[in-house]
């Protein structure tokens, strides 16, 4: 009997989740391992959905760009809660929602606490810049940076801010002494 009850509670949860996704106009949500294959699948899914919509090509391309960079950030940089999880690969949450004025691409992943001050500093710096400032920073980083062992060029967040044309919104939720959950939202204004 209690087993049956649990099942009903779960069904109710599924329905609540459906409703809240509808209310928040969430088109896509995923939690799990983020690999190149997953990145390709999501971007082509988003591309197909956007192609069906009336959205302008410019906005569609921007959403695509921002998604790729966000997903590749997770697949290169996400940390894990436990060592067992570490072996399962890079994990994170990905959400795409469309509001009246903008598309929002939200990603979340575990990050080691000692990486936060550096990351926060560079995000604050990026958010302090205007279009020209972002373009200059991008050029400097491209000239001076090099491709890391992880295959990144240190350009992801600058590019996201540049392409989206909006400030990056982010938060760090402390989980324990070792790690936090890093959430980032990028908004692409609809034209």
């Amino acid at each position: 009997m209690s087993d049956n009850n649990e099942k009903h509670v779960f069904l109710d949860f599924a329905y609540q989740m459906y409703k809240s996704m509808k209310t928040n106009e969430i088109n896509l949500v995923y939690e799990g391992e983020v690999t190149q294959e997953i990145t390709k699948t999501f971007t082509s899914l988003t591309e197909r959905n956007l192609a069906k919509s009336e959205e302008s090509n410019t906005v569609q391309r921007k959403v695509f760009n921002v998604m790729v960079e966000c997903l590749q950030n997770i697949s290169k940089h996400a940390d894990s809660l436990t060592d067992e999880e570490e072996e399962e690969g890079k994990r994170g949450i990905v959400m795409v929602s469309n509001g009246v004025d903008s598309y929002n691409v939200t990603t979340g992943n575990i990050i080691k606490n000692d990486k936060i001050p550096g990351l926060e500093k560079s995000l604050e710096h990026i958010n302090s810049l205007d279009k020209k400032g972002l373009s200059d920073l991008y050029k400097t980083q491209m000239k001076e940076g090099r491709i890391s062992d992880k295959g990144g060029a240190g350009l992801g967040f600058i590019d996201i801010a540049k392409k989206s044309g909006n400030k990056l919104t982010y938060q760090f939720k402390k989980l324990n002494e070792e790690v936090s959950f890093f959430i980032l939202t990028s908004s692409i204004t609809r034209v």
Partner: protein
Amino acid sequence: MEVINIPGTDDTPNVILDKGNNKFEISGRSLPEDVNMFYEPILNWIDGYAEDPNAKTEFVFNLEYFNTASSKIILDILLKFEEIAENDNDVVIKWHYHAEEEDMLEAGEEYADIVEIPFEYISYTD
């Protein structure tokens, strides 16, 4: 010189490097998982080409999308051609972009700011 002709995929571009036919082109999408691995043979080929380049090189970029890691490699490619140009060879970059894609035009202009090679911008529509 050997001809490089790599067909494009969902996440890697179509690359043609053909000295004999004077055809140099990177087109499509570039978001490979490992940019260094994908572009290494291309950069090596250009190093070889730099030793005995054609009098005039028109390098075509016709990219629909490239990720940030690829953008760094594209700069490396352009810097190699800048060197070729510095050795009294004609080098022109033909930068194609979709008319609705200002970001792609801006990306070309950013490269043109960094490297001393003439850029021609060519817009296309669907």
